[in-house]
């Protein structure tokens, strides 16, 4: 048993899991509150990456410090994508608030395809190089380059986002309002919660974390195109369902389970079946625990 190999697969799995987690948060929060699978969410991640690329390229001409450029590009991506998220909700989901769930779902799929094609036309269909702005610091170097700076950054940012989000939801007034809305929208309205604002905020937070994921992974692998949101979005959605959709810790757990499964599956069995592993895990868990790992059984309101 080669320990170093095991460890690098483990870190690779964590990195991948972190990216899934940053996207899955948006799926699970939106589902928790308005019971909608926001299929346009993967595209928000892709738009975040493109925004960072464009802002980064513009800032690079000013000759700023690369790390500062990276931070500014990240911020720009987060703000821009959050605005996109809120706008999508206003345009495509709010008018359908009282419509059957299926209509909203179709609206979401439509939004996803629209955004993909919009970026395709506005930008290009080619893969674009994403500049490597982070210096290599050789973290954990004694054991031969186990981790790159970008990997380290992905893990740390995910942890920070998780902690901030937990604080927001558990300990603030807004968090309380979110939990109340998730439990019963009508009742929340009756006690004076501005439900529309809560929903907008949910989209804002979810989009912001997805955009962060998009920027981080693009700088990690060094390239983007208009299609990256689709596959990452599907995987993150699987992770959210795996952990129990609607549950925030569940989404994180599901993402890490998925990331590690893929990484170890590839490392010890074969990458031929990478996607197969992910979906077998999903099927097995859903057979034995239909609500997902940390999901609650939901009682239909009568």
């Amino acid at each position, binding site marked *: 048993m080669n320990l170093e190999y095991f460890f690098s697969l483990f870190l690779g799995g964590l990195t991948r899991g972190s990216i899934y987690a940053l996207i899955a948060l948006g799926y699970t929060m939106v589902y928790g509150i308005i019971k909608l699978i926001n299929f346009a969410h993967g595209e928000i991640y892709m738009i975040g990456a493109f925004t960072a690329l464009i802002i980064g390229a513009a800032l690079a001409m000013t000759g700023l410090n690369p790390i500062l450029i990276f931070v500014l590009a990240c911020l720009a991506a987060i703000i821009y994508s959050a605005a996109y998220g809120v706008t999508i909700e206003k345009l495509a989901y709010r008018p359908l608030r009282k419509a059957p769930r299926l209509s909203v779902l179709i609206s979401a799929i439509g939004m996803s395809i629209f955004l993909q094609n919009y970026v395709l036309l506005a930008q290009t269909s080619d893969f674009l190089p994403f500049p490597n702005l982070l210096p290599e610091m050789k973290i954990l170097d004694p054991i031969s380059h186990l981790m790159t700076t970008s990997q380290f950054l992905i893990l740390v940012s995910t942890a920070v986002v998780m902690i901030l989000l937990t604080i927001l939801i558990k300990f603030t007034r807004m968090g309380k309002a979110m939990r109340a809305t998730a439990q019963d929208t009508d009742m929340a309205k009756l006690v004076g919660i501005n439900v529309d604002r809560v929903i907008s905020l949910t989209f804002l937070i979810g989009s912001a974390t997805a955009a962060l994921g998009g920027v981080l992974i693009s700088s990690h692998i060094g390239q983007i195109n208009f299609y990256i949101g689709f596959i990452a979005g599907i995987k993150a959605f699987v992770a959210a369902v795996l952990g129990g959709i609607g549950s925030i810790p569940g989404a994180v757990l599901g993402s890490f389970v998925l990331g590690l499964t893929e990484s170890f599956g590839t490392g010890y069995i074969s*990458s031929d079946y990478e996607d197969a592993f992910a979906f077998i895990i999903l099927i097995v868990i859903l057979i034995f625990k239909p609500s997902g790992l940390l999901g609650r059984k939901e009682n239909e309101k009568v």
Partner: protein
Amino acid sequence: MKKILVLLLISFVTFGAFATGQGEGGTIKIGVAGAHSGDLASYGIPSIKAAELVVDMYNAKGGVLGKQIELVIEDDVCKPEVATNTAAKLVGEEVVAVIGHICSGATKAALGIYKDENIITISPSATNPPLTKSGDYPNFLRTIAPDDAQADVEVTFAVDKMGFKKIAVLHDKGDYGKGFAEFCKAQLETRSGVEVVLYEGIQVGAVDYSAIINKVGNSGAEAVIFGGYHPEASKLISQMKKKNMDIAFLSDDGVKDPTFIKVAGEYSEGVYATGPVDTSSNPMAVKAVEDHKAKYGEEPGAFFLNAYAATIAVLNAIDKAGTTEYEAVSAALRSEYVETPLGKISFDANGDAIGVGFAVYQVQNGVYVELK
């Protein structure tokens, strides 16, 4: 009111029929099919430009058989399921020959349709060997050497010239990439003292490739041979280089594309890739490239010369056959040698071009350089 509407509709349909009827015989239609959008568009678009340049040249001289040539351009996005629609559309347009398709998978899907309609199909880039060697598609020809020839060049280079003993073979699970990888693996296994330490397909579009790269590192490979296209290749090579892995990277003509260098940037330095032999000093090739620059204001892209040669071969065969009849044109393609930017070529009984081959290139200072 309704009756008038119905009448109007009927008359439109009838006029429509007359309109197409009159169109026939006016021009000779040649289809151009391939990936014209999507992430592999950089392989398909040069073919359109090549066909346009050749057709402009012929049309300026009065066309072929006294008729002007018209191009019908259809996109297949390099997807087999789209390619069948593309093929059906071209059949509907009554083209006499098709330049394309670009990707082997899409080509294979479309070929059955062309075969039923007796339409000559010449691909500038579909290198999957069974397309010609299986004998299933007598209407198919190509102006590029097949993958087994390419795998032969690749393995000879890796083993005999570079002396690699432990080689990992990866592919993208696609018709083209996997086919190439399988040929390399088979070739490597016949060499004594050479070991294929890893043979696997990677998940195209995966969020990252760190797991498979760790696996390559762990396998003790001295070199990686990758079968597939440039988007995956650039991700693989940049992640390998970021991890400071000192493993040679060899790939195919799907990677021998300037876009690969553009995307992989500094990480592409030193990468080997096989590709069609450089014929850029051929006078016809020089002229074709100059015409391209004059008309489109840029350097031509991948498979431009192959598509140029394919278009010339078809038009020449129609001219020599004196008709657009399938049998006659098909025979002319196989019997008449024609001057093209790839040199003087003809086609063998299978449909492979005689006189084209592969060479090994390496990225040096941001450009592919042919290794002699």
